[in-house]
């Protein structure tokens, strides 16, 4: 239908009059102003709570619950970091230094094994031809829709059999087998969109499979792998239910569990302490996001669009 109407409309196209140009320009300016108005107010709604949280870490209990403006009334309070100190020291025998170390003991190995396993598996899916490949690939897509909640009980029983309860193994081991299928999928899609010229040249030059993978494919995959590493870093930092199920000794708590514990024991002493430590807990993720937000957006976009 559209092609018909377009064709019949074409001959009628003429040079627009001056008034029309002005009207279009005005309409565009109004549209632009309206867009900025919406974007600005929604942006405020999105970010103000975070600013408020930051300001509240310098406020007294009384001020937290009476003021809208995020900065404390007395700006010299901004120089008082005692809430950060108290929050960090906690009211338990461990400080947040322990909890951060624990978090990194989970996050760092998990990111590394995720990168290795995803690269290998994605390489196989995207480049090799063998019977059953399509079937395996469709299983991978299927498991992306499989809610982890159905698997929790048997996984727990399995790790219990293996004597891995209250260790970090249940949180790291699965990632070594590329079962975070979202990531594998992301890398497969990226590799499929990359030309094979360089690899073919390297094969002719006599590279073996591992050399090819390390010297040609991994450098090509760099942007996708950075996305994977960043997402895995933040998701693992934020992971709560995993440690909640598997970690029972306080000494082994990662930041997420420790924060929940602080919240439970704080009572009504000084809310600024728990708020301050929440900000500190967000810092690693915030830093990573601001340094590399391009990779997050690209990763999130490509996973969806090419699906």
């Amino acid at each position, binding site marked *: 239908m*559209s092609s018909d109407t*377009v064709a019949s409309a*074409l001959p009628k*196209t003429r040079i627009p009059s001056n008034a029309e140009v002005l009207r279009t320009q005005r309409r565009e300016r109004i549209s*632009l102003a309206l*867009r900025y108005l*919406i*974007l600005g107010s*929604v*942006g405020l709604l*999105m970010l103000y*709570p975070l600013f*408020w*949280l930051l300001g*509240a870490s310098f406020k007294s209990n009384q001020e937290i*619950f*009476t003021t*809208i403006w995020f900065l404390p009334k007395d700006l010299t309070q901004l120089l008082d970091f005692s809430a950060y100190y108290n929050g960090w020291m906690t009211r338990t025998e461990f400080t947040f230094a322990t909890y951060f170390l624990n978090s990194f003991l989970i996050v760092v190995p998990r990111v590394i094994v995720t990168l290795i396993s995803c690269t*290998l*598996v994605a*390489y*196989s899916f995207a*480049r*090799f*031809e063998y019977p059953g490949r399509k079937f*395996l690939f469709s299983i*991978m897509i299927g498991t992306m*829709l*499989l*809610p982890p909640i*159905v*698997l929790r*009980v*048997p*996984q727990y029983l*399995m790790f219990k059999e293996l004597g891995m309860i209250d260790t970090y193994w249940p949180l790291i081991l*699965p990632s070594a*087998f*590329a*079962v975070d299928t979202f990531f594998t999928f992301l890398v497969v899609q990226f590799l499929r969109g990359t030309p094979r010229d360089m690899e073919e040249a390297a094969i002719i030059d006599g590279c073996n*499979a591992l050399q*090819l993978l390390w010297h040609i494919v991994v450098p090509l995959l760099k942007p996708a792998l950075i996305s994977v590493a960043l997402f895995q870093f*933040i998701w693992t930092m*934020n*992971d*709560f239910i995993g440690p909640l*199920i598997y970690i029972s000794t306080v000494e082994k708590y990662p930041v*997420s569990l420790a*924060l*929940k514990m602080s*919240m439970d024991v704080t009572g009504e002493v000084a809310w600024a302490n728990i*708020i301050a430590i*929440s900000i500190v807990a967000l810092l690693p993720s915030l830093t990573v*996001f601001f340094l590399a*937000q391009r990779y*997050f*957006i690209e990763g999130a*976009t490509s996973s*969806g*669009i090419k699906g």
Partner: protein
Amino acid sequence: MYESKRLGYLFVLPFILGILAFNLFPFAASFALSFTDYPLIGSPTYIGLENYEKMVFDDDLFWKSMTVTVSFALIVVPARLAVALFIAQVLNFKLRGINFFRAAYYLPTILGGSIAISVMWKFLFQQKGLVNIILDTVGIDPIPWLASERYAVWTIVALNTWQFGAAMVIFLAALQGVPKSLYEAAEIDGASFWQQFRNVTLPIITPVIFFNMIMQIVHCFQEFNAPYMITEGGPLYSTYFMAIYIYEEAFKYFNMGYASALSWVLFFLIVSIAGGLFWSSKYWVFYSGEKERAR
């Protein structure tokens, strides 16, 4: 070399082992366990359909939890998608600072699952928290957000809507992919902005709407962190989502059999909704160049 079947299998081997050990086996085991009574000590006893019978006829908490979860998803999924699409549409324009806005809107999604954000939310919705202070300045009486059976779930809804970023970046990319020529043609035909949106934009991005919908449904039915942290399932079970019920049955009361049965009912619900959507997609999802998409 890429013809080498052996190398292909070698590289995919971790995945085959992993998917068997950590997904397919637990998946089957969970189904089997749902027909047993298994209090963690000792071995599972086969009890047939008893768990499912108990759930349907004898467990008010199951029905309560189901109602809470389903109504939550019914509100959050459309709300999130609508906000995400609206913002993406506003952003899809020759704008200065588009990257800043895109990052700012995506930030809550990235941080959203964190316990620290739940802590923040809890403070915002206190009786004397920021939200009520703001309401007070416009003359609305303070609302007992966290203490009332009626409002508690809305704090979780608000938190989830606040995290529309993931869906938004996907929508934005899709909008940017709509061929300009179509809009030009519509313009010449004299189509208004709203008509262009309805008749050009919407049909073209239906595959992405469909994708986002499926992902959000799978996600929302498993909501755990926020209700567990902010409202602790209460008050009066008004935020007692299925994920919390399953967690408590399994890891607080160690009723592994019953917890498995509950998780299978939730799984079945998600699958039937997703299946229904897939079935309906042939009526409303429009694929252009289906052949090219296959590879």
